[in-house]
């Protein structure tokens, strides 16, 4: 395994060649905001919130970009912040996020991120799409109004539970999380009802029926699984 040397925010650092910029940054206490990323799941770089500037000429998502020799990485400047805020605004504009009545209010990664990035108004016009709520599953529900398409549920279902009940259909703003072949969740035969998807969901899109508002999701349980499996 080769060791690469590079700078993050002017500090000379080194990391293994298989490490991502985000991993090295976190090892050294450098904060980079993320949304779709979750420790324990394969990173896919779908949300682009974690973008960093490389060599002063390109931007890349730090969760899937491997470190290379001589890289000059900047994790935070006014341009990056603007990009992150715009990305976040686009995520908000694409669905109907009404915090006041959301089950995840006070316990929502999207809400926390907008506070962290200081997103105090919208410049992008909201699309107000008509989205379905699927309550056909006995224990769980999905409200597509609150989905950010991070695909954490898809990844945890396929890679951790091994069921691959969930997937994404459609493209762009028509993309939706589906269960089996776009059946109601209650009719999805492959679903084991384990609830891992609900626990990893960053917003209130996936929820456990009958749970109170702000009920804490156990988003860090994957770390324990990793340790137990010796990965």
């Amino acid at each position, binding site marked *: 395994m080769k060791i690469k040397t590079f700078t993050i925010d002017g500090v000379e650092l080194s990391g293994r060649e298989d490490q991502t910029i985000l991993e090295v940054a976190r090892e050294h206490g450098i904060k980079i905001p993320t949304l779709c990323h979750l420790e324990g799941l394969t990173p896919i770089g779908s949300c682009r919130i974690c973008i960093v500037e490389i060599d002063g000429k390109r931007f890349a998502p730090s969760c899937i970009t491997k470190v290379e020799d001589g890289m000059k990485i900047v994790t935070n400047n006014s341009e990056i912040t603007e990009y992150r805020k715009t990305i976040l605004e686009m995520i908000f504009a694409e669905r109907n996020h009404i915090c006041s*009545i959301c089950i995840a209010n006070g316990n929502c990664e999207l809400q926390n991120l907008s506070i962290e990035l200081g997103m105090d108004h919208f410049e992008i016009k909201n699309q107000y799409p008509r989205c379905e*709520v699927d309550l056909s599953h*006995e224990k769980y*529900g999905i409200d597509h109004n609150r989905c950010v398409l991070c695909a954490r549920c898809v990844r945890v279902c396929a890679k951790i539970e091994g069921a691959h009940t969930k997937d994404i259909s459609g493209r762009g703003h028509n993309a939706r999380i589906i269960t089996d072949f776009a059946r109601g969740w209650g009719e999805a035969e492959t679903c084991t009802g384990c609830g891992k998807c609900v626990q990893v969901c960053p917003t209130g899109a996936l929820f456990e*029926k*009958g749970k*109170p508002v702000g009920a804490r999701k156990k988003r860090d349980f994957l770390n324990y699984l990793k340790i137990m499996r010796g990965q």
Partner: protein
Amino acid sequence: MKKITIDPVTRIEGHAKISIYLDDSGEVSDARFHVTQYRGFEKLCEGRPFTEMPRLMARTCGICPVSHLIAASKACDEIMGVKVPIAGVNIRKIINYAQILQSHALSFFYLSSPDLLLGMDAPIEERNIVGVLNRKKDFIENGIFLRKFGQMLIEKLGRKRIHPDYIVPGGVESPVEESIKDEINENARLCIDKALYTIDTFRSVLPAFEEEIRYFSHIPTYHMALSKDGKIEYYDGDIYIIDPEGRIELKFKPEEYNNYISERVEGFSYLKSPYLKIKGYPDGIYRVGPLSRLNIAESCGAEVADRELSIYREVAGRISNAAFLNHYARLVEIIFCAEKIIELLNDDATFVTHTKANAGVNFEEGVGVSEAPRGTLIHHYKVDRNGIVQWANLIIATGHNNLAMNKGILQAAKRFVKGDDIKEGFLNRIEAVIRCYDPCLSCSTHAVGKMPMMVEIVNNKGERLKEVRR
């Protein structure tokens, strides 16, 4: 014909306008109360999970969210087909009493006391709560205490002062610690003392309002309220409708409301006009609220409140149709609420840890009725087999009073307005008719915001002669 417009109407909750029409001789020929805000809660809840209804519907209003929480949760209980554990019922009731207490304090002290203590003709720049505070500090301090107590209690039990999401389908989210008892008991007793002092003050100024009692929406109408065993009831019981003389006209289960009440849409207002089906429109005019509740109940079922009720009835009679006496009735109800809070806090069942019944969708329809500060509140939902709301109907207390408010301002306008050269104090009286009902237009049109109001005078050619705007 000429027309007077009061726009916006002030010191009420929401947005409204009053139009007064004058004939050629300058006499009032008609008057209308226009609610100028639109919301559409019945529509926006379609497609949402029924379990979300309490916290979604609570957002209708920042003053009486608890009433919506309770009516919505009761409708959801019906959909689930569950019986709420006694601790859940008791805690729901305590929060509702706290809310009625604080809302009545808001209406009486903050919105109406400037008219009552400084007079209807007091200079407009003084006729507000600060004006009363400068003249009668202890009086207003009592009002602030009462409101604070109610809000504090809602926060202690419901975790949030405004829009608590603690009341849920099947009961309440979690048990209440018994350690809160002593402090609340003590403050509730202080509330009774402060309300008694306020009643004394109110009674001392009452003789000056003989004309207002007689002409402020003093109209024979039916009255509607929940009642149980002849007592005031905000949570359980049947719906009673009495005629203007106090005879029971109808008694029915809350879920049967649709058989007896219909709603009419008028072009001049976003607020619908409910009426009694058996009497037709507009003869089926009825009222709800503190006055109606005290008309229907034989007694309060609480010691101090009952004593005050009998003194109230010396002024009002057994049955009263004078909307002005709503102010008095509110004070009696504040005492009633404080006593009931003490009673429920001293009931061990309140602190039992089982507070919520769990179930899925067992019925596809549910009606929830509770008494809100302004009167009877009805929530009615229809859901699909997964619990997605397909249809909703809300009849809010202020809605029930719509026909009476319209008729009431006509009566007051006929008494106080002649020609377009009218004094400001007379226009204030027209607004004060509306304040008697403490209307919450935000709720009743299902809108957020302060409550400005306008009065306009229009002649028979439709030309606006005068407009008073605040």
